[in-house]
């Protein structure tokens, strides 16, 4: 475990090695499949989906940009395998949300080293709510206007239910998962390398 400080830029972008690429790919695949099969439908285009948990894990292990890519590409994959039609506005919204969720290492919650405390959980909750509101309250409607010039009332209803359902999943399931992951990784750090 390296204790050297990493620059903000490298924390934001993540380290782009093969491991990160595979991690994003598997995250995107899980996100896509869970989005189609692992949810309870709340309104059209939105569901109380367990897919968000995957974004939390990717964010914890790899950082914000990988989490954003996993969520965005995962949504494209979900659209492709499910056939709801392509809603790139929602994919972009999910990517923005993924970015906010994945900001974990930036405020010192280093899951891979087993560091996740109550104060991190509080910051995480706040960021989840801000990210949700920004992603589905502003970004998605703007892109919906650009792409489809579609009926916005529906988008608002969908956005509202998306905000509520995603935020509740991210907080209610996400925080226990983060504690679990941190505990799992903390056990591994007790081992010290013998010379």
């Amino acid at each position, binding site marked *: 475990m390296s204790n050297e400080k990493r620059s903000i830029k490298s924390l934001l972008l993540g380290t782009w090695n093969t491991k990160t690429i595979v991690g994003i*790919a598997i995250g995107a695949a899980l996100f896509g499949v869970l989005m189609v099969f*692992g949810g309870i439908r709340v309104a059209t285009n939105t569901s109380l989906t367990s897919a968000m948990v995957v974004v939390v894990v990717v964010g914890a292990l790899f950082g914000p940009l990988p989490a954003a890519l996993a969520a965005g590409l995962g949504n494209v994959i979900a659209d492709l*395998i499910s*056939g709801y039609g392509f809603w790139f506005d929602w994919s972009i919204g999910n990517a923005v949300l993924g970015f906010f969720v994945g900001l974990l290492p930036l405020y010192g919650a280093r899951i891979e080293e087993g560091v996740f405390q109550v104060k991190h959980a509080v910051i995480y909750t706040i960021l989840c709510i801000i990210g949700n509101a920004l992603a589905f309250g502003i970004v998605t409607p703007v892109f919906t206007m650009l792409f489809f*010039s579609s009926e916005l009332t529906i988008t608002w209803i969908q956005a509202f239910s998306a905000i509520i359902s995603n935020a509740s999943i991210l907080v209610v399931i996400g925080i226990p998962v983060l504690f679990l992951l941190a505990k799992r990784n903390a056990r591994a750090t007790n081992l010290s390398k013998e010379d």
Partner: protein
Amino acid sequence: MDDKRLFVNTTPGNRFLDKLTGKTKVRTFLILIVLLIATWDIRVILPFFILSWIALISLKPDWKKVWGVMAFVVAMNLFNLFLVWVVRPDYGLNICGGSTVIFKFTDFYIITSETLWYFMVRFLKLLGTFTISLTFIQCITPSEMAAGLYSCKVPYKVCTIFSIAFRYIPDISRDFHSIKISMQMRGMELDSEKTSLWTRLKQNVLILVPLIITSFDRVGNIANGMDLRGYGKNKTRTYYAEHEEGPGDKKMKVVYMLFLAIMIFVIIWRFFFPAEYEVWCPWIS
């Protein structure tokens, strides 16, 4: 979450569309999707809708599987349209520019022929997009998809993300199935007749935890395998799955260039000469 609804191929077949190169498949697909998203004109949508069905039929797919997915998508879209109607019954006035009342429930809840026209256009548009993506996913393999995206100047690391993700989907389905069986063997009841919906939901969440953990545990193995084979050492990449262009590709190249021309025309037309109303309606203009 079983194999019934997944259409991921890992080996190419020998139908006409299968034999094309990944480059042709991906380019045609992307052009068609952008075209269908960009247009609201039934005169453009209808030919492509019919074309997409011809393509789907030419693949001779497993129709039982296709109807299953199709029924779901049609139901979803109809429900979506119903929601639009509930919120704005007279939506046709905004988007087609007319309001011919056919039937009146109350003063607010009316059925106008323009709204119905808009619903039909939208339905055909979404179903067309769906048929195209269904055709695409049935005739492509993950490696061909990566090769095709790479030919569209997408950075190859992103292409790899796509191909690994697609390759991994059947594995997720298999893992889910085996975790479910082993959990049932330990006494977890998933039968819909014996347990309530809520407990079944909770148990499905319990399956997710090992599914996610095993999936991410595998990241290290896959990444090591790729590193050992020298992945990511060079700036460019060639694909084993990409074969030489055959006669079919040369024909398809003409076809997709034509589609590209239509797409550019539609987008430019919409941008520079925006119609007063988004959806063209035969009895209004």
